[in-house]
């Protein structure tokens, strides 16, 4: 092999090796750029267009947006998602933290209990919704069971009560996600330096005070992650509502996700549907982008 030819050959191989990684990444990036960002752009454009049954690219400015904000159902949807998210996030976080702390007391059957608390997360929202719909059905479920057990004045008709139906969705959603939040907190608790706690004990602090003053403040990153994940789950919630209440009674449990689906697919209002979807994206992006930014900017290069 002559000197110069070998050099040329090597640099060709080096160039190929330098390109290969980008080439391998390219399909994923292309897919994501097209199917995520391209679609976001498309939907954003549609929200400013005259689209109704089919896409119509005539520009109509903010017409669809003002129709969205003038819509009666959208008001209900926003109110519902606000109530739902708040209750869901707060309940899951508090219950999850409580369970994690209780489980962290050197419990005998910890593995088993953990499994029980966590299994709902493995279920589809559709299954969860089906089960809870049946469970809370006033005619046949919990209410009837209580009556049969002798508590005849017991009344639980939330599922079909327009004012209360959203809370039944919260109950089912909390049931599903609490175990997951518990697992996050448990991992956080196990990561805390034991010597610090020993030091606090030697200082004579009671157990509850150790938790309140020393341990829980250290779980701040877990709180942040839990809230971000739960908020993102809440805004995306669609399946559970469809399976449990179908958005009803009436439209009492409509949320932005079901609103969008119904406007896009049954009301021939693609423009409004697009506007509502863009709004949802904006809310999630406001939550997620700073989170991702801080995660990615981190010390790892």
């Amino acid at each position, binding site marked *: 092999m002559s000197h110069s030819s070998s050099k040329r050959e090597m640099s060709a191989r080096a160039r190929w090796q330098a390109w290969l990684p980008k080439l391998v990444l390219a399909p994923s990036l292309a897919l994501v750029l097209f199917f995520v960002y391209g679609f976001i752009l498309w939907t954003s454009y549609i929200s400013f267009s005259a689209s109704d*049954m089919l896409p119509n690219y005539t520009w109509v400015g903010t017409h669809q947006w003002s129709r969205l904000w*003038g*819509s009666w159902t959208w008001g209900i949807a926003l109110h519902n998602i606000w109530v739902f998210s708040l209750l869901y996030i707060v309940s899951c976080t508090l219950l999850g933290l409580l369970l994690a702390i209780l489980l962290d007391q050197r419990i005998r059957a910890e593995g088993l209990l953990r499994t029980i608390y966590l299994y709902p997360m493995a279920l589809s929202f559709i299954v969860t919704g089906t089960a809870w719909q049946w469970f809370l059905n006033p005619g046949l479920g919990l209410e009837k069971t209580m009556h049969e057990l002798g508590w005849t004045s017991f009344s639980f008709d939330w599922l*079909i009560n327009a004012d209360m139906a959203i809370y039944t969705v919260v109950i089912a959603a909390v049931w599903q996600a609490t175990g997951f939040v518990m697992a996050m907190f448990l991992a956080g608790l196990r990561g805390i330096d034991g010597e610090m706690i020993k030091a606090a004990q030697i200082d004579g602090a009671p157990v509850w005070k150790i938790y309140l003053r020393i341990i829980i403040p250290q779980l701040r990153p877990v709180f942040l992650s839990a809230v971000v994940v739960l908020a993102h789950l809440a805004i995306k919630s669609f399946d559970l509502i469809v399976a449990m209440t179908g958005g*009803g*009674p*009436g439209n009492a449990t409509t949320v932005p996700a079901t609103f969008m689906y119904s406007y896009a697919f049954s009301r*021939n209002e693609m423009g409004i549907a697009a506007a509502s979807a863009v709004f949802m994206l904006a809310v999630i992006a406001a939550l997620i982008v700073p989170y991702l930014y801080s995660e990615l900017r981190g010390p790892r290069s």
Partner: protein
Amino acid sequence: MTVISNVVKGLGCVLFPLALAAPAHAADVEVLNWWTSGGEAKALGVLKDDLAEKGIGWKNMPVAGGAGTNAMAVLRSRVASGNPPTAAQILGFDARDWAQRDTLANLDQVAQEQNWSEVLPQALQEFTKYNGHWIGAPFEIHSTNWVWGNKALMDKLGIEQPKSWDDFLAALKKAKDAGYIGLAYGGQPWQDATVFENVVLASGGADFYRQALIELDENALKSDTMVKAFDQLRELLTYKDSNSSGRDWNLATALVINDKALFQIMGDWAKGEFDNAGLKPEQDFVCFRTPGTQGAVTFNSDQLIMFKTDDPQQKEYQETMAKTIMSPDFQIAFSQLKGSVPARMDLSADKLDACSQKGYEQVKQAADADKLMGSLAHGYAAPASVKNAVFDIVSSFVNSNMDSQTAATQLARAVQGAKS
């Protein structure tokens, strides 16, 4: 970023030929529909058999769920991708929407041969014609201002068939006082709207119905008459049971069948449930026009629209299909199974059951008196966007303590919002 844009371009080059390679057309007709329940499927079977006799293969494309919502979504993606089915089952304003987009075949020739413009009622022609051309073949006419009653219960409680709205409420009260459910009620938006349009027609009359729900006049929508209609709806709702939320219409019908409830306000497809239970009209159960709406009929009609095609064979099939649907024999046979009445006004009602005979006569009279009007709940009064806006308000009203004045105001606002 140039790398990425090149990749995207490349991907486009790979994907586009794929997209253009349309699948070959089979020698069948492909009919998209959402007739998935027993009676409906049987009725459709009549068409299938008729076509089979003519040597035309049948590729059923039933899309279940969502009362046609899913079917419309599928249809949209098929049309958008340039691969529409031969024909599709469709309701009211949706047919117009497709025609507006110039996607439908012209059925003028068949219509002329069979003289459709003479035999179909004018109100229905509004939807089967677009810009003077025929775009759809109607299967039947359903009407929605029917009350279905439990005969045994009426006899037991000494209730006569009510003639006026007040009689109607009195009868419901009697049943309620005796421990029965007065009104069998299904709590889904379209059912709320069905009852609502009955109440509007009963309290405001045919002209008001037309003004408010078809012409969508803002003043009519927020008028005192509309407030009164909401008041009457509120009163009517006191006779339903508390567990009605989300109930399907046929489960409500079952309450009447099983002697649990006295009346149900529902379209004539409810008759199928009585048939299935082995009950005879006018003997075991009664049917009558919603009190206060006599003389007028709110209707809906399934029609088959055909999609434009360049395939001469498919064109021929489409015309054969349209011809078959509009043939007198088919119209009668179909309605027998579906519980409806024929869309043609020139047929003999002999072969229909008692309720349908009565209904057919009433439809003809209403058509002559220009009191045959599209049902709002089924997309024959206003476009889907308006229809659903009305659903929103009515359902909210039904499921809350909203007062009638607010409801009327919100209704006018929602309709305006959806119209613009």
